[in-house]
């Protein structure tokens, strides 16, 4: 974004800014003018971004559901979906094998990708708002790996105290613990410096890496394999009950975060000013951290570590829509879903007859992006911090 020279600076000699424009009387701003200059109130642009993202998501779902060893055409996929919601149509597949493939293998997997992507992107956006720092992301600062340690603990020790929810519950607790550590370490004087945040992430990731290694060392072959799966991340073998769990927990947590969006906006002004505007900052922040742990934990519990979605998606949406959190969270929800649906499609098809762990893909793209963001952030801030 190139901004014109500040009005209080020296008169520039560059011809690009005409002296007349500089001396022009202050425009008489009407409320309508004002509305147009605010990030949170450009409905046309917002609708456009929502619309395009949602369209990409729908196309992705249809293509992804059709792709695989048994190719299924888009018409058949749409037909089957329409029939499922009670609309009889001529496109719907007649072969039971296609119907079975779609509903028992493809759809759970596609929906799981969609949900996990949406939740991770929202978790990233919330974390960035809470830390008032665009580099905060569950994977980068170690929340995801904290959740993986929790899950690995449950697997290795064979814990079943909460039945089918045990692994998810432990993932949540692990993620929460990691988030609290990051929060306690990286914040100083009401601010989170980028460099402190990244260093804290390194420390947390080092520790969780060791803990995961230890659990693998201690565990048997089966649990070892399962832990490797956490670390790489994969949508393989997603089933409806798991999808339902992620959907329910995710919908509640995402709904709450969107409700808190306005308060997140105020955090950008700094803690004290946010408090002066009536935000109960500490309470909001702790609450948001629990939400981030919940969103990340539930996603990680079933598909493993998928890094950088929470970094890349909110960042792109912020460039398109501005930093106002309500629109940002909704767009991230849609965009995150779309990104992971396509990533999963790629993971399944890029190498013939092999299922590439999706975490590898997102990190391959996300790593360089993170690097670029770091560089840009440093240049803009004139140094680290």
């Amino acid at each position, binding site marked *: *974004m190139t901004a014109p020279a500040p009005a*209080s600076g020296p008169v520039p000699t560059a011809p690009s800014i005409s002296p007349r424009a500089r001396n022009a009387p*202050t425009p008489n701003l009407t409320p309508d003018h004002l509305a147009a200059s605010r990030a949170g109130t450009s409905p046309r642009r917002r609708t456009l971004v929502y619309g395009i993202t949602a369209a990409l998501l729908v196309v992705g779902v249809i293509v992804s559901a059709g792709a695989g060893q048994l190719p299924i055409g888009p018409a058949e996929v749409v037909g089957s979906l329409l029939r499922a919601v009670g609309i009889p149509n001529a496109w719907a597949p007649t072969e039971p094998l296609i119907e079975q493939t779609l509903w028992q293998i493809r759809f759970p997997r596609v929906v799981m990708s969609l949900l996990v992507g949406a939740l991770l992107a929202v978790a990233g956006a919330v974390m960035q708002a809470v830390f008032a720092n665009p580099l905060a992301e569950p994977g980068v600062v170690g929340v995801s790996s904290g959740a993986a340690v929790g899950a690995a603990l449950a697997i290795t020790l064979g814990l079943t105290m909460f039945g089918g929810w045990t692994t998810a519950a432990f993932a949540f607790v692990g993620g929460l613990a990691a988030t609290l550590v990051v929060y306690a370490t990286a914040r100083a004087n009401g601010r989170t410096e980028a460099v402190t945040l990244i260093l804290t992430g390194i420390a947390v990731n080092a520790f969780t890496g060791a803990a995961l290694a230890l659990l693998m060392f201690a565990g048997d072959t089966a649990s070892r394999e399962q832990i490797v799966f956490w670390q790489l991340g994969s949508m393989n073998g997603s089933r409806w009950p798991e999808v339902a769990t992620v959907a329910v927990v995710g919908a509640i947590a995402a709904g709450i975060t969107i409700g808190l969006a306005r308060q997140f*906006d105020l955090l950008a002004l700094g803690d004290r*000013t946010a408090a002066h*505007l009536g935000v109960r900052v500490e309470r909001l922040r702790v609450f948001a951290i629990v939400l981030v742990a919940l969103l990340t934990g539930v996603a990680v519990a079933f598909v493993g570590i998928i890094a950088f979605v929470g970094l890349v998606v909110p960042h792109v949406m912020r460039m398109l829509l501005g930093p106002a959190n309500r629109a940002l969270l909704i767009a991230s929800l849609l965009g995150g879903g779309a990104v992971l649906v396509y990533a999963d499609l790629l993971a399944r098809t890029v190498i013939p007859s092999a299922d590439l762990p999706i975490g590898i893909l997102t990190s391959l793209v996300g790593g360089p992006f993170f690097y670029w963001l770091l560089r840009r952030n440093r240049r803009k801030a004139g140094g680290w911090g």
Partner: protein
Amino acid sequence: MTGTAFALRGVGYRIGTAAILDDVTLDIAYGRVLALVGPNGAGKSSLLGVLTGDARPSTGAVTLDGRPLGQWSARELARTRAVLLQANHVAFSFTAADVVEMGRAPWIGTDLADADEQLIADAMARADVAHLGRRAYPSLSGGEKARVSLARVLAQDTRIVMLDEPTAALDLRHQEDVLRIARDLAAEGRAVVVVLHDLSLAAAYADAVAIIAGGRLVALGEPADVLTEERIADVYGTPVRVLADPDTGRPVVLPRRGSPLPRG
């Protein structure tokens, strides 16, 4: 509105064993501009922190509108007082207009929210930032940031306004503008508390000046009574000359610089 906004009685504030404020007794009235002045580290910002509710006094009592400050909810306070801090960092590229609009946050869901757009436009015109509305806040100069933040405080439209060194980053004209705004706010019946370093500025615009030094209230009263050569020299540790402004008769404080500066 008339009467007392804040009443401080024997307020002390300590961090560890260090006494930051000691036995401050002070009334802050509606309809008046009170300037807090004093040397660096005297406790001005801490006193402001006690008034905003950010810092809890270790001893003594603070009431706002006759009710102990601790009993006010965050929301109630946000609708009663607006605060401009010294540092006004904004994370993410919110536009200047976005930042000003955030000042309306305490009024969301009230009848007064209907006036949001007009209040935002008025506040921006008043702080001379209407032309900056679409600019990204982080791209503004220090002085522009300070004025946009002032517009945010004005948009909050509260009956008490507190400004911590609002003129620090501003040029001559905008310094005068800000204090004229402070005067206007007081004329509308609001209580205005402003921390200032420039004693002449304080003398020119404040109804009352409070000198804080070493955490204590050293003097409180009308500028001409409080800002005497002896007292200022004593408090700041440097000799000054106090003249009367030929136009207004209010005190103008000049440091005594002794022999002419060496040429170079």
